[in-house]
């Protein structure tokens, strides 16, 4: 008896669950997405993008509508309609010859472009998409602001100043180190040449010392100069070991 009651209860629960699942569900609706605000400059063009997501296959009966409510007005006028694969653009209202259909329903895109903006275009644009049988859903609104100059986003000036100065400083430091490295290398090359010359002159002076009497003063002068230069270079490069040698002595 008890087992039978439990079995009945479980069946009832299953039935209730199935019934509730077949009712209205949040995923079985059409979702429309537009940006919240769009900024445009007077005289230029702006793209009002509208994308949607539908749980049904995109059929031929899909319809996309754009409404416009001017700033300070309570009326919302229809300015664009797309139905049965054919776009219908406003050719009598305030957007006459200024609107362009750039959307593609197959790609879930219902965007329009408005050229030659004017201050009267300030207002709210509403994008509404219906894809039978998927017709339940919220339309989305985008507010257009037409300004003389579009303000730059916050952080552009900040980031560019920081990045520019850091780059400049890094470049300067790199250039200074490169120059120093090249200069030291040149010094080493010159040093090697001087020491090679000194060796050659020493050998020759040893041979001709007895024969020529006028040459020695010049040779000695050269030897002295090269020796002093070599000693100075040795002092610079060998800091601690040289001192250690002195200490040992």
């Amino acid at each position, binding site marked *: 008896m008890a087992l039978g009651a439990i079995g009945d209860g479980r069946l009832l629960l299953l039935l209730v669950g199935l019934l509730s699942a077949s009712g209205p569900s949040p995923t079985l609706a059409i979702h429309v997405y537009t940006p919240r605000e769009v900024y445009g400059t007077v005289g230029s063009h702006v793209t009002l993008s509208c994308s949607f997501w539908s749980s049904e296959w995109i059929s031929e009966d899909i319809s996309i509508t754009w409404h416009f409510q001017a700033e300070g007005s309570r009326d919302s006028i229809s300015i664009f309609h797309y139905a049965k694969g054919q776009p219908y653009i406003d050719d009598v209202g305030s957007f006459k010859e200024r609107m362009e259909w750039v959307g593609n329903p197959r790609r879930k895109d219902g965007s329009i472009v408005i050229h030659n903006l004017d201050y009267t275009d300030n207002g709210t644009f509403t994008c509404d998409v219906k894809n039978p049988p998927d017709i339940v859903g919220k339309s989305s609104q985008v507010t257009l602001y037409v300004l003389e100059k579009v303000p730059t986003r*916050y952080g552009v000036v900040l980031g560019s100043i*920081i990045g520019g*100065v*850091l780059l400049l400083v890094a470049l300067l430091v790199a250039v200074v180190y490169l120059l120093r490295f090249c200069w030291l290398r040149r010094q080493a090359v010159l040093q090697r040449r001087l020491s090679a010359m000194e060796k050659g002159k020493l050998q020759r002076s040893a041979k001709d010392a007895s024969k020529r009497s006028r040459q020695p003063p010049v040779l000695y002068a050269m030897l002295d100069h090269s020796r002093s230069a070599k000693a100075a270079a040795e002092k610079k490069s060998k*800091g601690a070991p040289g001192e250690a040698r002195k200490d040992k002595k």
Partner: protein
Amino acid sequence: MLLLLLGIIVLHVTVLVLLFVSTIVSQWLVNGGQTADLWQNCTSGTGAIFQCLTSSTNEWLQSVQAMMILSVIFSVLSLFLFFCQLFTLTKGGRFYLTGIFQILAGLCVMSGAAIFTVRHTDWHEASENTSYGFAYILAWLAFPLALASGIIYVILRKRE
């Protein structure tokens, strides 16, 4: 010798702390119960309730923010380079790189504070009660200290 090293490090850390506090605390202007800049404008309501809004997006304020951030970066780099050069420099060598970065930090602080002084009326209406907050004063304090610290590094020779 060790005393000199300690003194130099203490000076550098002091400059760093001044720069950090001046950059982070948003109290460059004070007007009664309201504090403003560099990052937030706060009003203290009844009791201890603060209502804060982000500061204006004016380009001059952004440049002041950039200069303060740069000064902090340069000072930190300078401290790091000081310890690097302490162990790698040859005897008798000078701490050029450390000194140059510290001097750059001082110049950045100065330019940031100067730009703020000249241009703060662009994004705040001038009123009689507005006075400069302590973060602004710390910025001006950090400038000569940073410069002095940098010059000491440039003059100092490595011993021992």
